[in-house]
């Protein structure tokens, strides 16, 4: 993915999520094969996350434009336990990322934010590794 495309997509995502109080945690990076942008909202004792990712899909390549598997995840944690759930997925190409994708994703993003906002402590079913102390 080109940096310009990532930046354009990131700006569009940030604007949409900011309206619901989610702040971006970085400009995006390639995480072991998938570009990812992360947004955080701390509310009611939990950290609430929305993850948006693009994984290139070689078998869907047509013409010169790379195609991506775009996923939106909702998550939450309390620094001890966490939960993560896939909200939605679609296919898009590099041109979509720069233009139409934020619109194409709008409903999925809204659902992810709602899901992240609705998580309660009882939903956090996985446990992080505990912090260690200096001996």
């Amino acid at each position, binding site marked *: *993915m080109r*940096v310009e495309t990532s930046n354009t997509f990131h700006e569009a995502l940030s604007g949409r999520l900011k309206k619901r109080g989610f*702040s*971006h*945690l*970085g*400009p*995006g*990076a*390639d*995480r*072991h*094969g*998938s570009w*990812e942008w*992360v947004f*955080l909202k*701390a509310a009611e004792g939990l*950290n609430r*996350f929305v*993850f948006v*990712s*693009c*994984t*290139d899909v*070689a078998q869907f390549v047509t013409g010169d434009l790379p195609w991506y*598997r775009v*996923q939106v*995840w909702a*998550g939450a*944690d309390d*620094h001890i336990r*966490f*939960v*993560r759930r896939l909200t939605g997925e679609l296919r898009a190409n590099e041109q979509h990322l720069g233009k139409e994708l934020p619109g194409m994703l709008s409903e999925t993003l809204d659902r992810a934010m709602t899901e992240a906002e609705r998580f309660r402590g009882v939903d956090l079913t996985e446990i*992080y*590794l505990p*912090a*260690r*102390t*200096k*001996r």
Partner: protein
Amino acid sequence: MGTASFLATMLDQEILEVRAGLVIAPRTTPDDKLRATDGNTVAAELGGRYLLRYMLPRQVGQFRDGTALPQCATPTPYAPEETVSWLFLPAPDEDRMYVMVLDASRIDRILGPRWVRCGKGIEYLLPNGFPKGAIVAWGWEMQVT
């Protein structure tokens, strides 16, 4: 949860938090608030161990000349069936079957370490990517089995 993955991550946590005296940044830490340092420092803190950048089979060969794009890397080896879960990677039905081994001391700028959000691993951010010279010895990807 795989015991081997737990042990591998815990040993890396031990090296960083207990031996090197670092604080692994909380998951809520934005990229621009992470500790920024040079690769030599990270290599020393890891006891000279390498960083790992996992990838999908179709991405093999894409990074043999290095990259200037921002990348994440981890010090921890995972089996393919556990990499996705421990690092909470997108496209979880696609195992990361390959890994590129990187010499941190050859990378100019590294941010972190930080705990993986909604995952259990430890990650670094390479904001300027990594040069070809950082790819260890054999210069290409290794299949993980």
